[in-house]
């Protein structure tokens, strides 16, 4: 069972945990990706996220389906935020339940690592003196 969402409003970690709760799961692993205040020693004021929405949802769903299949996870909630985010806010919340903890950790890590490689979402770092699309240039 999956709960995949792209949201313009603050993410609700508790709702993600509640969604994945299952009587046959002995562990829930949660990853929260938050907005850091600096990159390579330079102060970041905020981040702007944009997404190719239908494809981002489809790719997040594929990843979560693969994680269920590969690791035997029970339920996954994958919520990603778009728009302008301030320092400390959550950009992504992933909650995974599985019968045992190893599968929950592995599936959660698979979801965030793969999301960062394939899901069409982009973040722009806003600095005091300019802005940069993250990872755009080699």
């Amino acid at each position: 069972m999956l709960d995949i969402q792209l949201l313009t409003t603050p993410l609700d970690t508790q709702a993600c945990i509640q969604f994945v709760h299952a009587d046959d799961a002995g562990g829930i692993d949660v990853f929260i990706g938050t907005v850091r205040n600096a990159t390579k020693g330079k102060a970041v004021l905020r981040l702007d996220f944009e997404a190719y929405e239908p494809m981002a949802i489809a790719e997040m769903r594929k990843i979560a389906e693969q994680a269920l299949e590969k690791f035997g996870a029970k339920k996954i909630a994958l919520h990603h935020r778009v728009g302008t985010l301030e320092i400390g806010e959550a950009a992504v919340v992933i909650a995974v339940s599985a019968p045992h903890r190893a599968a929950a950790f592995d599936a959660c890590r698979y979801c965030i690592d793969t999301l960062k490689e394939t899901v069409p979402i982009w973040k722009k770092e806003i600095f005091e003196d300019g802005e940069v699309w993250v990872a755009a240039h080699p």
Partner: protein
Amino acid sequence: MKISLLSFGIAKDITGQRFLDVELPSPATVGDLRSVLVKQFPRLSELASVRLAVNSEYADESVFLSENDEVALIPPVSGG
């Protein structure tokens, strides 16, 4: 034939617009479209990678395009 091109992230800064109609001789592949785009927008070749998605799926260079396909220019992603 005409395809609809969507640009995101830094690719949108480079093409200057989110939506762009591109005219291509038929038949044309994703690779052909890439050549046309790189010629028109040389700064695309400075990016770490540019993938193309056809109707919301990543597509190989050899995939043939059809009239009215929605193609997206996907610069390096950075979600999470």
